[in-house]
């Protein structure tokens, strides 16, 4: 009996018509396309985009060259060299992130004891050569200075989950 039903179903293309009914309904459904440059998808405060280095409000850089981020980085995209500064504190002399290696996992931010290295919401950036995508300490600090307000607000919003 079931074989007969199956035969009838396949002979009269019932399953195929059912499929066409579904696609036909979606044809008139509401479209979910986000028209990118004009419209944007919502973004979480946890978004992991371009990296930045932060400073304390008094202008002192946060990074203490503990090198936890360098160790935890799974893509080995971070290179750090450090030295003692004139005031006796340990500071980085070199802090590079190669964005062509980075996988944007956010481990560096998680590992940082002083919230120095962070990933921002910025995702629209480009480089015309590899060196453009090689973030040096100066570049990272510049990004941090520029977007400090946004960065601080995002950290604040997420503070109770961290």
């Amino acid at each position, binding site marked *: 009996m079931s074989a007969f039903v199956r035969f009838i179903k396949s002979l009269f293309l019932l399953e*195929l018509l059912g499929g*066409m009914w579904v*696609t*036909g309904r979606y044809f*008139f459904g*509401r479209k979910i*396309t986000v028209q990118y440059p004009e419209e944007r998808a919502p973004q979480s405060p946890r978004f992991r985009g371009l990296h930045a280095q932060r400073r304390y409000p008094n202008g002192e850089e946060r990074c203490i060259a503990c090198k936890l981020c360098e160790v935890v980085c799974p893509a080995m995209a971070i290179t750090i060299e450090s030295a003692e500064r004139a005031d006796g504190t340990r500071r980085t002399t070199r802090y590079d992130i190669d964005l062509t290696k980075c996988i944007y996992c956010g481990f560096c931010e998680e590992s940082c004891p002083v919230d120095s290295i962070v990933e921002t919401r910025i995702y629209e950036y480009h480089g015309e050569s590899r060196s453009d995508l090689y973030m040096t300490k100066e570049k990272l600090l510049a990004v941090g200075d520029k977007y400090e307000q946004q960065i601080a607000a995002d950290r604040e919003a997420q503070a109770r989950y961290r």
Partner: protein
Amino acid sequence: MTEFIHSLLAPYLPEWLIAVTIILLKIVAIIGPLIVAVALLTLLERKVIGYMHVRIGPNRVGPRGLLQPFADTFKLLLKEIVVPGGADKLLFLIAPVVSVAAAFAAWAVVPFDAEMVLADVNAGLLYILAITSMGVYGVIIAGWASNSKYAFLGAMRSAAQIVSYEIAMGFALVGVLMAAGSLNLGEIVNAQDGNAARWFMWPLLPLFVIYFISAVAETNRAPFDVAEGESEIVAGFHVEYSGAAFACFFLAEYANMMLVSLLAAVMFMGGWLSPFQGTALEALPFIGQGSFLWLFAKVFFFLILFLWFRATFPRYRYDQIMRLGWKVFIPITIVWLVVVGLWIMAGVFPFERV
């Protein structure tokens, strides 16, 4: 129109040259709009499939994306035609021409209206069958000349598939011939004159369905697109083609789609006849009168079906295609031919005139 051109040229040209000129003008009048229609069909396809995917499709070039197909065309025409190493250069370049020539030549006998036909051939249907079968040569030559395994596989699949479905399609058309009593496409439409109940799609419904499905297979469209099968054999027979040569295959595929849709409309849905013929609405302008507008509306319906299929169905496996063609369609068509034969012999509606 013809007389006007004739009188315009009569003082300057000999008679035979005028005849040639007029025929050439008619050809241009068919091929020109056809190419534009192909361009718009590609846009329609992307839009319809996009809508069924809950996307909106191309909308950046021109208002609502209307210029997108033209941008695509210019891109294709400006690109280099790369001839792969070890390819048979002559055949490689001839193949797209064969494809596109076969796709265009068939339009010669298509009746757009009672009088609008380039060549009113008595064996029109036979001519169309012969010419559309030529199209497969383009595919096979392309696959062979490319010197590529994928292209060759695609060509072999395409050849086997088209040969198999040609039989079912031919049988479906035999039903139409029996019902109409003529091979002339205009005569076939006239045999359906009267009202919409006389359209051959009702008494020949199984043949109609089989014809259309075979047509989808014949044009290598989804879900029968194993000849292209981008997930298995990259792009099948036209992997190695680029630029204008690829555009030719593209053009041929879409022109063929429109041709088979048009044939379905002509042979099963009364061609240019109005569906309101013989009803109270007959007196209305445009809607009541049969004209090429009705023909285009019917063709549009079939084209939408093509796109709808593509958005809905996954690709058939190769052995399933062969099974469907040989073990399902051919037996059904043969059985229905017998039924139609008896029906015509009995002389009951709608075959009392045959």
